[in-house]
């Protein structure tokens, strides 16, 4: 069980929690504050959640039969709600809300954001596949809870989650960024029971969650919370619901091990709440303390000029100054030279 791959997967989980936080707070958080928050989240907060929900002696497992093989709760819900706590103290980007109405702040490069999302989704296959354990011999593959599984179950249900999530978010938003984010929503929505869901059921769950996650993101925005990439909806809310859905669809399924209760709706519900609170409280408390110490947000003038210009002293997006449509001086060699339609 204690293989290097396993260690690497856990280290990556820790880094993932920080990356979930990073997108939501862009363009106004101090890098130093972000590092303090992400070190605490990645090395303390989620470790607590993982110990409670993943370890054979974790109380969520031994007392409630908690099931969350793909980290919907112990990583995504925890990091998502930690992010929510930070966003409340951090406040919105300049110009996000005008007279209380949320504005759209376009990314520098939409194609680059989509490529980034595709890379995350591609990585998910190896990431989740690395979460199962090959024991060799007759035992073969098992999950972190020691129940039998296989790579095809993880790969197939990850694929179904991606497909359904993209469809759900597209239908609910018609937006390219949200459509690709839907791939993440879908995968996270089924990750908690990748080992158990029928692929068809995984597809249906992911589609529905794609729609609901967009609605939740709009709800958050209406509350005045500026989540630049929808991390709270995609990771926090979706992870929270995903844990509960395991109780809905898999309630009664026995766990491996003596005296370990079966999966139940109540157990999953309590587990989801524990994950949300475990994430939210430290996120809110630490960011509140940083805010009081004036160590959370960049100066207003730096935010107006852009952190790249002031702190990094770089111009990473020169193309942003180039209009989308510029007449070219190079003649179109394929065009007709004679007037048409005469």
């Amino acid at each position, binding site marked *: 069980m204690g293989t290097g791959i396993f260690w690497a997967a856990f280290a990556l989980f820790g880094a993932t929690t920080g990356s979930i936080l990073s997108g939501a707070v862009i363009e106004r958080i101090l890098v130093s504050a972000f590092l303090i928050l992400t070190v605490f989240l990645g090395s303390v907060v989620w470790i607590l959640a993982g110990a409670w929900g993943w370890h054979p002696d974790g109380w969520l497992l031994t007392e409630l039969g908690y099931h969350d093989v793909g980290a919907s709760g112990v990583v995504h819900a925890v990091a998502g709600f930690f992010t929510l706590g930070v966003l409340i103290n951090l406040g919105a980007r300049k110009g996000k809300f005008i007279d209380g109405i949320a504005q759209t702040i376009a990314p520098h490069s939409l194609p680059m954001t989509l490529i980034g999302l595709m890379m995350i989704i591609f990585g998910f296959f190896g990431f989740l596949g690395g979460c199962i354990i090959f024991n060799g011999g007759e035992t073969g*593959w098992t999950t972190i809870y020691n129940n039998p599984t*296989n*790579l*095809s179950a993880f790969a197939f249900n990850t694929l179904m989650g991606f497909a359904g999530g993209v469809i759900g978010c597209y239908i609910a938003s018609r937006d390219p960024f949200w459509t690709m984010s839907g791939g993440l929503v879908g995968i996270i929505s089924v990750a908690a029971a990748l080992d158990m869901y029928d692929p068809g059921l995984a597809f249906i769950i992911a589609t529905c969650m794609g729609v609901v996650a967009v609605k939740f993101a709009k709800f958050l925005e209406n509350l005045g919370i500026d989540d630049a990439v929808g991390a709270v909806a995609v990771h926090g809310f979706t992870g929270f619901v995903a844990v509960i859905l395991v109780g809905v669809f898999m309630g009664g399924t026995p766990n491996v091990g003596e005296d370990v209760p079966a999966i139940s709706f109540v157990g999953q519900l309590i587990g989801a709440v524990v994950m949300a609170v475990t994430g939210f409280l430290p996120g809110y408390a630490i960011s509140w303390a940083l805010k009081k110490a004036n160590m959370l947000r960049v100066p207003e003038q730096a935010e107006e000029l852009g952190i790249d210009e002031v702190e990094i002293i770089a111009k990473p997006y020169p193309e942003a100054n180039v209009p989308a449509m510029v007449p070219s001086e190079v003649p179109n060699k394929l065009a007709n030279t004679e007037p048409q339609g005469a």
Partner: protein
Amino acid sequence: MGTSISSWENVTAYFSFADSPMMLALFALGCAAIVTGLIVSIKKHEDDAFDDLK
């Protein structure tokens, strides 16, 4: 036990509702309905977008 893709390297996994062909059929129909709904949704969106040009 299991759906058509349920084993890998001689290890069998179990899926939700694998012992209930009726539920599996319903899930399959649900998936087909979602894909059909997606196509209808895209068509409706296209029509609305192009109607705005008129």
